[in-house]
């Protein structure tokens, strides 16, 4: 039996033994990873200049990057995107 097959058998047994425990533990990991992605607003505003710089320095303003930025749950983001699309790069910090 190879490693992946062995891993599968072990985890399926854990699920059979106590599905609620498996669900709770993976959910807890999922939640902790989510929490890591939530940046305090002060830190986010500090980071904005770097977001600008990375977009221009590395020429990464395309659909993929826009999606990534749009998914961030902060109020300034959409205005930021709109400003970029319109070629207006200045007023995002004042939006806060």
């Amino acid at each position: 039996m190879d490693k992946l097959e062995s891993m599968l058998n072990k985890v399926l047994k854990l699920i059979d033994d106590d599905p609620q425990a498996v669900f709770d533990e993976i959910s807890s990991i999922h939640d902790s990873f989510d929490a890591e992605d939530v940046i305090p607003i002060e830190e986010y505003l500090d980071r904005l200049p770097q977001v600008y710089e990375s977009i221009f320095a590395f020429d990464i303003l395309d659909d993929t990057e826009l999606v990534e930025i749009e998914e961030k749950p902060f109020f300034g983001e959409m205005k930021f995107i709109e400003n970029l699309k319109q070629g207006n790069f200045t007023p995002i910090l004042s939006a806060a």
Partner: protein
Amino acid sequence: MIIKDIGHHTCSSKGGEKFVIREAPFLSEHGFLGKGYYFWQNNLEFAKIWGHRHYNGKYYVLEFELNVYYDELLDLVGNRTQMMQFKNLIYSIKQKLAEKFKNTPEKKVAIDEWGIGEIIEYLKRKNIFEYKIIKAVDYRVSYRHLGKESFLRNKKNFIFLNPRIFYCFIEKNNLYFSNKKLIYTSDG
């Protein structure tokens, strides 16, 4: 079998060059594949983009000459058999749990949202995960950065010649390298 490879490790410049060169690589608590020590596979460009966006522009890139023990590697880039088995593992876990909670729709939704990093982290915590190293590729990058090239002039099919491949070494004591050096500092 040992595979020699180049790994680029991005880290904060906090502590200064001497400290970073001595202590690197640094643990990532919430990487794509869970907790571990991460390296871009021979890709300074992606290492720099990561540093610029995640370390407020204050970062270093170190280059490691990695010794990758193939027997300890889960290769989700080039080993088709492992990719198929791993996909089956993930699907089986989700499917079995979904069956157990078939009368609890909100739990089924939650299970659907789990990523492979979270499931790998669970397997590691239960001492079920039997690999020491994982190699994976992230496709969420612009085509320009991935080096998209057509196979033939009149065909729409294409290849990526600059894939965003990375290694995750789960523990530092399984990380073998023959050399490491600082190759880029964001402050010049």
